[in-house]
């Protein structure tokens, strides 16, 4: 075997190795993207999900100070260990019927793009992990408000989880 053909053969091997590494890198990236985690919470009889990365903390609903002359969705403000946080009730925004809040109610402090708010949940259940391919586009049957503020839905065995587009909700509310 000539010296030239040996070099060519080595190049072939190196090229194969490069391709393999590139493919593995892409595969690793895909693997990290395929699963997403959502905090599942309930409003009335419906379940919603917020991306776990957007959630900063979950707190009991107490000591919320009402702010006069603010829209209905502004429930007030609260002091969470020194952080003054706006508490918002998105039920009206999503077209969900108001139920009296019980001891199960929580404030989910979540933020995106520098804007943060405490979102009222009637119940916070769990963190669910779903494969990205399970997330379907928002259903037309969700209705205008829910469709507008959701980025997808996940059909689970016993419920449908509507993934909320927090960015879109907070951007609309601050206007």
């Amino acid at each position, binding site marked *: 075997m000539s010296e030239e053909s040996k070099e060519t053969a080595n190049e072939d091997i190196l090229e194969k190795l490069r391709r393999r590494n590139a493919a593995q890198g892409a595969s690793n990236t895909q693997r990290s993207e395929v699963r997403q985690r959502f905090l599942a919470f309930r409003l009335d009889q419906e379940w919603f999900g917020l991306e776990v990365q957007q959630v900063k903390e979950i707190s009991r609903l107490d000591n919320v100070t009402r702010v006069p002359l*603010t829209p209905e969705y*502004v429930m007030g*403000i609260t002091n969470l260990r020194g952080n003054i946080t706006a508490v918002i009730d998105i039920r009206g925004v999503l077209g969900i019927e108001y139920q009296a809040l019980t001891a199960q109610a929580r404030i989910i402090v979540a933020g995106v793009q520098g804007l943060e708010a405490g979102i009222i949940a009637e119940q916070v259940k769990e963190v669910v992990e779903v494969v990205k391919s399970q997330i379907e586009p928002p259903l037309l049957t969700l209705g205008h408000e829910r469709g507008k503020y959701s980025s997808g839905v996940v059909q689970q065995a016993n419920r449908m989880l509507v993934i909320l587009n927090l960015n879109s909700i*907070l951007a609309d509310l601050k206007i």
Partner: protein
Amino acid sequence: MLDFRLKNTEAIAEVIQLVLVEIGKTTLAVRASNVKRLQQINLNELELPNRGIHPALSAYVYSNDLPIFDLGQLLGLGSTNYQAESQLLIIEQANRRAGFLVDQAQEVVQVELDELDLLPELVERSRLRPAAWALWRKSTKDIIILIEPTECFTIEEWQIVINKGSR
């Protein structure tokens, strides 16, 4: 009628005085420097409520010079209870005066500016009118909203003050 004038001892820079007022279960703070007078009012002397003129306008006193508004109603907190011990905040701005009925004026407190804070951005941007303008961290849990009563007014309500509230 009990009548007293608040001493304006508010320092220029680092502290402000706040009058804490109660409307229903809500406690709010008004800058003492804006309060011309705080007085207990005998509601029997007023024809309350005088809703025919304006929903939030309760009555006129002092020969119709002073329009009196129900602060609870202006702020969307429900009407003042009209108890015998109801109190009247008289606020003067740009030579116009208006009275605001509250359930009770609790106390006057001196607060350092360090204890005050801005409203959260989302709340500030969504206000219907800029009546709430800051907050006081009274304790680790309690927050008192600072309000500017004249900022509650709609144009129509301002018109009443302009027409009737001249000094």
